């Protein structure tokens, strides 16, 4: 794991005048691989695809694996594991004495390109991200260490998979407490207003928020994986480099 020093950033949602503080945290250098996830399902039989209850993962959970304990050709050992639900991702991280990153932590770390911690305003950077979003994912996915290493030392924040975050369900697409029940979230969709006018570079972030707002915790997708994070005061136990 690598320490992300933390800092402040202005997220896509909310009051755009007030930055969000992100405390220092540790983040996995790579997304979790098929090989790592295989070890996990060996040790935790309840997360094998024939055992996992439908509450925790839908029908396509690990469906591209050749067999229950054999990822096979569509899931190379060092490729990121995909077709995993939020519950499975959370359980994996817990088993490593880690946790999923929060949405703010993930977005904060994902703002970095090869050269600077905050490249979210770089046109070229956002173009690369958006062009990847436009490409359909094909199995097998490339091995981790595929796209680029950012200035924090973290690989593949963009350009390999979509990633689960702990509070993916904090993105409000409908009915907010202080608004009427009918509309899309004005804050998001016209922050969004910001996307349309003030800051077109937020469009890549908008895509991620829209994705998070559209999935449920049991969903799995062939290009949706995860990596783990850890609080600074937790000892580093096991897991990825």
């Amino acid at each position: 794991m690598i320490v992300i020093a933390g800092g402040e950033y202005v997220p896509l949602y909310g009051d755009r005048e007030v930055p969000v503080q992100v405390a220092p945290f540790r983040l996995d250098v790579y997304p979790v691989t098929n090989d790592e996830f295989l070890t996990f399902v060996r040790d935790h039989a309840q997360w094998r695809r024939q055992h996992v209850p439908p509450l925790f993962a839908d029908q396509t959970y690990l469906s591209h694996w050749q067999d229950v304990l054999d990822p096979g050709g569509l899931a190379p050992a060092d490729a990121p594991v995909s077709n995993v639900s939020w519950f499975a991702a959370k359980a994996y991280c817990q088993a490593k004495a880690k946790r999923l990153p929060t949405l703010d932590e993930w977005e904060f770390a994902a703002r970095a390109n090869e050269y600077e911690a905050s490249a979210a305003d770089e046109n070229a950077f956002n173009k690369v991200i958006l062009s990847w979003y436009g490409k359909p994912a094909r199995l097998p996915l490339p091995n981790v260490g595929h796209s680029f290493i950012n200035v924090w030392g973290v690989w593949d924040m963009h350009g390999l998979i979509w990633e689960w975050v702990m509070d993916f369900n904090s993105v409000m697409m409908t009915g907010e407490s202080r608004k009427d029940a009918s509309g899309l979230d004005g804050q998001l969709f016209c922050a969004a207003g910001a996307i349309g006018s003030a800051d077109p570079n937020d469009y890549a972030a908008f895509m991620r928020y829209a994705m998070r707002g559209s999935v449920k915790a049991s969903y799995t997708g062939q290009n949706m994986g995860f990596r783990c994070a850890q609080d600074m005061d937790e000892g580093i136990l096991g897991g990825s480099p």
Partner: protein
Amino acid sequence: MNCRVKSIVGLALVLALLSSCSGGEHDTDKQSESAHSQHESMQMSSAGALSGQSVYQLNSAWTNQQGEQITLNSFAGKVVVLAMVYTHCDYACPRIIADMRLIREALKNKAGQISFVLVSIDTKRDTVERLKRFGEETGLTKQGWTLLRGGDADIRELAAVFGVQYRQTSDTDFAHSNIITVLDQQGEIRHQQEGLGLRSDATVTATRKLLCYSHNGRTINC
């Protein structure tokens, strides 16, 4: 560019990218149908065990307004009408609670078989004392009302199970989905009412249906 048009294009693209996700709609009728068939098949295969759709598979610990520690499966055997709220909320939550009261009123001859549960999303301010006082001040003291507080990760997980989205928007406020969920006696989601200002008839009907039983081939008590 018009932000709404652009948003929709973006969302469509995202959904296309995630096309291998199964489902995607929020059709609770379908959900409860599949939950139901799942439930029946599970019951046939292993009587007594929790079905794969049961929310009672979660082993998170909660504290009620009396300060007692409980797990969710302590509601097993009753029909549960549940919402996630916070007690300092001055707009949506009172309306959700009002809806739940109306549902309770409509089903008052069955009240003993139904638990009405409010789960707080505000870990900081909704202490046991606060929940108790709030229950007393708002008349939620009758038998069957439970107010729960829990840890952040457990609240996040419960919300994920119910498809409830929430986010703290300031020191004092949360944005959250307005959803009332009905669980059957085994803890499966059988109905969800989403939004404010709706009639709760469908929720009442769905809840009542769960309290029917068969006797000599006739359905009774619906």
